[in-house]
């Protein structure tokens, strides 16, 4: 008898014990979603701030590269993911380059599949045009978020995950953090310590 068979046999024995005790079956509970109101973007921006991130909004007529350059506020090379390669990254003052290898780049730009207002989170993934590890190797991560992708609750985010249809999807909320040394909250434990979002209306 294999371990698998033994485990299923013990599960069946457990069911028999429960039945013998006259236990009433517990129905599969329906999920009741929180009610969040209509101002999802405002809620998302507020939640981003509460989770140590910063949300910026692209001004009318402003280029994404210019907005990113403003956010980056440094002379470092700014790496960008394949999923945002179609943007015009030419710039007079900053150097943008497509990040191929998982190097520890100081600044990296990628895009989210969706934003989640309830928690100020974003859904990101790996895939054919996204290298997920780059988002973990950098100090400063800049995420482009289309306002049109905004969802309200975590349950709505759960609906988006199969639609994204990638091997690994991440619900990211704020920078990497630890409280393992003396109970003090320290950002940048392993991944980004600075997280900026550029909301594209």
């Amino acid at each position, binding site marked *: 008898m*294999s371990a698998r068979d033994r485990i299923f046999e013990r599960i069946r024995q457990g069911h028999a014990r429960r039945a013998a005790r006259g236990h009433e079956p517990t129905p599969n509970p329906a999920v009741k979603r929180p009610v969040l109101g209509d101002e999802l973007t405002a809620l998302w921006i507020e939640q981003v701030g509460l989770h140590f991130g910063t949300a910026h909004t692209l001004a009318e007529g402003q280029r994404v590269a210019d907005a990113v350059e403003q956010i980056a506020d440094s002379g470092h090379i700014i790496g960008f993911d394949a999923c945002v390669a179609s943007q015009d990254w030419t710039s007079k003052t900053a150097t943008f380059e497509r990040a191929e290898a998982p190097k520890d780049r100081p600044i990296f730009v990628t895009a989210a599949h969706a934003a989640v207002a309830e928690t100020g989170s974003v859904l990101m993934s790996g895939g054919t045009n996204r290298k997920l590890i780059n988002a973990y190797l950098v100090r400063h991560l800049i995420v482009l978020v289309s306002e049109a992708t905004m969802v309200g609750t975590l349950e709505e985010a759960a609906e988006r995950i199969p639609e994204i249809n990638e*091997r690994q999807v991440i619900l990211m909320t704020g920078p990497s953090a630890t409280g393992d*040394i003396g109970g003090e909250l320290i950002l940048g434990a392993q991944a980004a310590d600075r997280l900026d979002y550029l909301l594209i209306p």
Partner: protein
Amino acid sequence: MLTEPDVTLEAFRKRVREALDNKVLRETMENDGRSWSGATQDLIKHENYAEWRRQAANTRQHVLENLDTYLLEFEKNSTEAGAEVLWCDSTEDAQRTITSLVKKHKGSSVVKSKSMMTEEIHLRDAFAREGIHVTETDLGEYIVQLANEPPSHVVGPASHKSIGEVQELFLEHHSELPADRPLDSHALVEESRLVLRDEYTASTIGITGANFLIADSGTIVTVTAEGNAELTVLSADVHIVVTGVERVVPTLEQAMPLLRTLCRASGSGDVVSYISFVRGARRANDLDGPKKLYIVLLDLKRTDLLGTTAESLLRCVRCGACMNHCPVYQVGGGHVYGTVYPGPLGKALLPYSYGVETLGYLASASVGCKRCDTVCPVEIPLTALMEESKRESYERRVGPWRQRKMMSVYSWLCTRPRIFHFAERTFLRLTRVLGGRNRRLRRFLGPWSKGRDLQFHDSRTFLSQYSDSKR
């Protein structure tokens, strides 16, 4: 390699005495307990928390009552997504299976994110025996690995360590770095970040646990605040998931209330930084991700609890809230217990899993305050389960003779209120004369009076104080 702790009652008492005499530990635990329990209290004040908790408890209970159905569904869907599911029902079986996988893929160096299941099967020891180098990637786990200790808490493995102790460990183990470097808490985190980066790069195999397994899609859910679970697997060729059979949840939507309660109860915030949903191995043309995904599902006596009075323990989501709020755990930390699961979870679970003859005494290390019941995000009646173990120990005549005799006398007194109140008054009067500084009662009560001042400011019984206050 870790030494298997002695789980006899005598060894437990010895560890308790040592912990009580360790001033650094007691101070660290006191600070730690305050911050964790305070954070949880703030987070569970949310107006919907009670509803989410009910929903989380019902989802977990429903799964347990239909475990075979959901496990089969998970196995089918994860296999279709490209994972290979392996089943193990004992520690030896699990150690053999996982080390074989590592050897098969020629992995001499492994990175591993925090997983209580791998602690249950003593995976680090099994790897050491086979010459496989493993590095823990969660900072707390990394610290206890350097100290050659097991974790003392399910969420904060190094919560018993003071910053001074961590500094000493880093100075000792990162000897290639200048000894006079500054090592405040930020510098320690930075140093571990850099050291771990090298380990990620050097390893081809990444091991993680799984907080939940989603049946209808074969998805694995992991939760970390540091992002180390993703780093562990994204640079690896092979991802091995090690988790318990009870972790399955019907749908992704139903996992969301569980994630809300898990994060809040653990004191980590309303949601932690990284929640990862993994389905299958790397697909053709994916830019990164492991090429092979194994999911090792472990039983380790879990299914023996199904249908018993202790079944509710399998709802546990390992948030550590019961430990953060336990006044007993907060005094001595997790190592006192000598078991993988310390605190109320261990005290309730282990006497059922390993028998009251072996670990029944753990249930007595409780003050019965029920704070663990109140904060548990999946409504496990931990105190009632501990009381049930104590009753069973008493009925089966397990434990010290003197303790059982005292329980008999106490039980006899409790059923005779007039004699009980007389005895209570007499005892209080006695403490006035014999308690306090000279502690003459100590000889009679032994360890019970070691850490307590048996002189009460008010010698009235609780009932007489209560009736006086009503007047």
